[in-house]
């Protein structure tokens, strides 16, 4: 089933990404930030996809931990790696935007700190996977669940701390005040989530081949 859906998914994702720059270029200008606000479409979309990645990782980890699904563990691993990739881009794009909007590359503001923390959690996940030795799958699963447990806090942190990062309520007002922008935001978000699914499928495929190889090695030994 997954294999049959894969090709249309790739085509759809590619088409969306081909159209995304056009949509972004045509979106109206934001009144105070002008051109630099264009980063926003990919910046926010990254965090949307990251939220999906973190949830997938947590669900996969929980399923592995409590039900013992090997496949769920592979999905969680792939999602964690993608979470690191997306989070890296989110931090880079945010940093570029911050340099223009705030004048500094990095600000120790609530949301930035928490995003950095999330990156560290999932990097930790990957490190455990690589250097943890036997039993590291369970350890990393715990890491994935804890990472997802703190993620909602990261999402709300800018609202609670009243820092310079825009609040999450921006999203709600945007839908009312600027429907064209709103549409582009959701378009990009969907494209990013689809790209995440494509990469996830590829990454899980790789992990399955690895498991197959391990099985063959075991057979050869026996």
């Amino acid at each position, binding site marked *: 089933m997954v294999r049959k859906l894969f090709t249309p998914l790739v085509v759809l994702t590619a088409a969306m990404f081909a159209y995304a720059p056009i949509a972004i270029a045509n979106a109206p200008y934001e009144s105070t930030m002008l051109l630099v606000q264009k980063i926003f479409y990919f910046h926010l979309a990254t965090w949307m996809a990251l939220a999906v990645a973190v949830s997938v990782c947590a669900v996969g980890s929980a399923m592995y931990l409590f039900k013992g699904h090997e496949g769920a563990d592979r999905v969680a691993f792939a999602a964690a790696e993608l979470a690191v990739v997306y989070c890296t881009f989110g931090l880079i794009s945010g940093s570029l935007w911050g340099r223009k909007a705030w004048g500094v590359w990095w600000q120790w503001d609530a949301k930035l700190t928490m995003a950095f923390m999330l990156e560290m959690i999932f990097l*930790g996940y990957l490190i455990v996977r690589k250097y*943890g*030795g036997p*039993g590291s799958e369970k350890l990393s699963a*715990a890491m994935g669940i*804890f990472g997802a447990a703190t993620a909602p806090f990261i999402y709300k942190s800018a609202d609670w701390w009243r820092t310079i990062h825009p609040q999450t309520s921006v999203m709600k007002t945007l839908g009312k005040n600027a429907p064209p922008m709103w549409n582009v935001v959701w378009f990009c978000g969907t494209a990013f989530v689809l790209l995440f699914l494509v990469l996830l499928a590829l990454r899980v495929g790789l992990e399955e081949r690895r498991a197959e190889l391990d099985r063959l090695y075991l057979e050869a030994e026996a």
Partner: protein
Amino acid sequence: MFLKVAWLVLRKDIAIEVKTREIFYTTLFFAVACVLVFSFAFVKEGVPVEGAGVGILWIAVIFSGNLALGRTFERERYGETIRALLLVPAPRAAIYLGKLLGIVALMSLTELLLVPMVAFLFQAPLFSWPMHLLALLVLGTLGFASVGTLFAAMLMRSRTRDVLLPILLYPVTVPVIIAGVLGTSALTQTPADEPMATLWISMLAFFDVVFLTLALWMFEPLMTE
């Protein structure tokens, strides 16, 4: 039954510790060494940088807590007693709870000496809001130790446990550390921002509930081979 098992595990740890006092002394010495090292960076011309005391206090608490966690479980591993513990026909979560309380007790003892020392050395007005400070320290320690106990227990099987424990523990407990540090600095600044400190205390309580629930829930499947 549940609480009784937890109590027995706690009593066992306390009994060992009272006899040897190994972890207590080493942890305390390490915490004091931490304070000494940081004092070089944060004391300019004989006067401590403003707010440095709070940061140093929490760093010392977290570092020494990390050490205590590692040592406690190293002892179990070395004596190969953890397998016996896990074979006990009792809920695993109770064993976790007992270990957790033991570590919280150890860390609290260290803090009991650390707080007056930092207040004395860095002229930090830590005692102007004693109840708030107590709540911050207890909740912060509980939050840190709840994740720490779970991870340290899991890492016992790993060869690289000494390196992996801080690598995994610090990022996950960052919210607790942030809440603890910011809450304490809200208390020590002039004038003290009491509502802010209360907000951080409630945030800490929230994190403790989340972390404790997750840890109790996950300990059983994690410790099953």
